[in-house]
């Protein structure tokens, strides 16, 4: 099977602290893989390595078969990978539409001259992007929000959905979702699961997600990898992982 994302023996150290140790991980095309583990296990650190925010101390990462060492974050995004953030990093003072448009600009940029002169091709591109934004707004049930609303004034759950929409707008085929259901209630989580299943099909996505909500993890992921103290302690389908003694120990402690 084609691997859209692969970590090879990745370690990340900050001074003496070993956040991630010798982790091997891969994401297959079209798959949903959940990365779980107690707080501080190094999950978000792995996201930061994949998106080029941190350089791994050892090991390497590949996106779509291409090593990402030395690439800047926006160059990795250009390889077709986008993420959301655990603590939501929307463009707070900008409108819902602008938030998505910024991400979409990557897919159809105009030159400075064309932009300022408002050439035909510029206008055509803007129309195309705006139509695509309309579709995303509808998928994430954001279409009824006043377009001038600034992102910071949206309810929490809506912000999370907008962030996912924004990530897809980059044209990414691989999505990293950092705790997409955090702070959501049961119903919201339920509909989020629906949405994730839908967008996977609609945009042909492969998804790596970090999540603490076990219902979501067990409900939509094909595979689960478990991290503890920076080490991968288990990997497999949800059933296997659920019954893995190491995982039970990590989550419940030993008697």
């Amino acid at each position, binding site marked *: 099977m084609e691997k859209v994302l692969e970590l090879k023996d990745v370690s990340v150290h900050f001074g003496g602290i070993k956040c991630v140790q010798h982790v091997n991980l891969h994401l297959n095309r079209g798959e949903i893989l959940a990365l779980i583990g107690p707080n501080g296990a190094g999950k*978000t650190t792995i996201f*930061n390595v994949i998106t080029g*925010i941190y350089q791994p101390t050892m090991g390497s990462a590949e996106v779509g078969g291409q090593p990402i060492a030395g690439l800047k974050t926006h160059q990795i995004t250009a390889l077709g990978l986008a993420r959301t*953030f655990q603590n939501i990093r929307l463009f707070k003072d900008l409108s819902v539409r602008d938030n998505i448009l910024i991400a979409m600009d990557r897919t159809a940029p105009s030159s400075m001259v064309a932009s300022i002169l408002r050439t035909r091709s510029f206008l055509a591109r803007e129309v195309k992007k705006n139509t695509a934004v309309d579709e995303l707004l509808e998928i994430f049930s954001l279409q009824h929000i006043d377009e001038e609303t600034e992102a910071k004034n949206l309810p929490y759950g809506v912000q999370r959905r907008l962030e996912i929409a924004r990530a897809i707008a980059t044209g990414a085929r691989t999505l990293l979702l950092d705790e997409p259901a955090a702070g959501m209630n049961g119903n919201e989580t339920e509909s989020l699961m629906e949405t994730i299943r839908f967008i996977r099909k609609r945009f042909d996505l492969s998804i790596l997600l970090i999540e603490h909500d076990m219902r979501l993890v067990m409900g939509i992921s094909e595979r689960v990898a478990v991290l503890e103290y920076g080490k991968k302690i288990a990997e497999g389908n949800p059933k296997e992982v659920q019954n893995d003694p190491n995982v039970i120990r990590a989550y419940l402690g030993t008697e």
Partner: protein
Amino acid sequence: MTEFIQHIVNGLSFGAIYALIALGYTMVYGILQFINFAHGDIFMIGAYIGYYAGNALGLNDHPSIWGFFVVLLLSMVTSGVIGFLVEFLAYRPLRKAPRINVLITAVGVSLFFEFGAQMLFGANPKAFPHLVDVSKSFYIGGVQIDSMELVVFTVTILLMLALEFVLYRTKVGKAMRAVSHDHNVALLLGIPVNMIISITFVLGSAMAAAAGILVGMSYPKLEPLMGVMFGLKAFVAAVFGGIGNVRGAVVGALIMGVSEQLIVSYGVPTFRDAFAFALLIVVLIFRPKGLFGKTLAEKV
């Protein structure tokens, strides 16, 4: 060789004054992570207070060492109060505002002092009174040390020792260091964060005022805009030493004073003022954390 050492000594006395100002920048930055643009103007105000106090006490005609200490103390206390007010009125209400707003406010406060001083004290330069008799000079192996330089060295060393004591040997100092690590945690531990910030401003302003008096005595020409260049250079010294690092600021300031002196003596005197900025740009590009500073990565 003697000439070279002579330049070093003169440079050190200049650097000592930069150091006094740099301390205020670095302490405030350490605790609030912002550049107090108005700090250089507190220095100017300190000098002017010295001017008026010195003349009022009639020290120009009867210089005395005790008179000098009275003037120094008066200027330090008054400037400390002004520093406190600036923080309380202009910066404290913006504690939660975006940093750019605080920065703009600081620029505003600085302009206000500079032009307020022009209105209050007049734009023309004033001659600083002679507070103590500094006409004598000493020679050590051919190197001349003026008694003014001795005064500068003595006062700066005493003040720095005092600050060192406050920062590292008292509860207040411990609290200041705690606040500079993390406001919220410090608050949870029961440290009165706002009061500690006030104390930081008071201490920094008092040090700057002392520098103002020393500059007034060494180069007896006061101008409302004198704080700009001194302030900027002291700031550069603080960045050079690693902003937020108290001892680094002192080392940075001394290096800066000496380098400037050497440029004036052996290089192009007119480029003296550009040197500080060139140094700053080089430091920021190649070693933004300065000589002794530490950088923190942004949390994602």
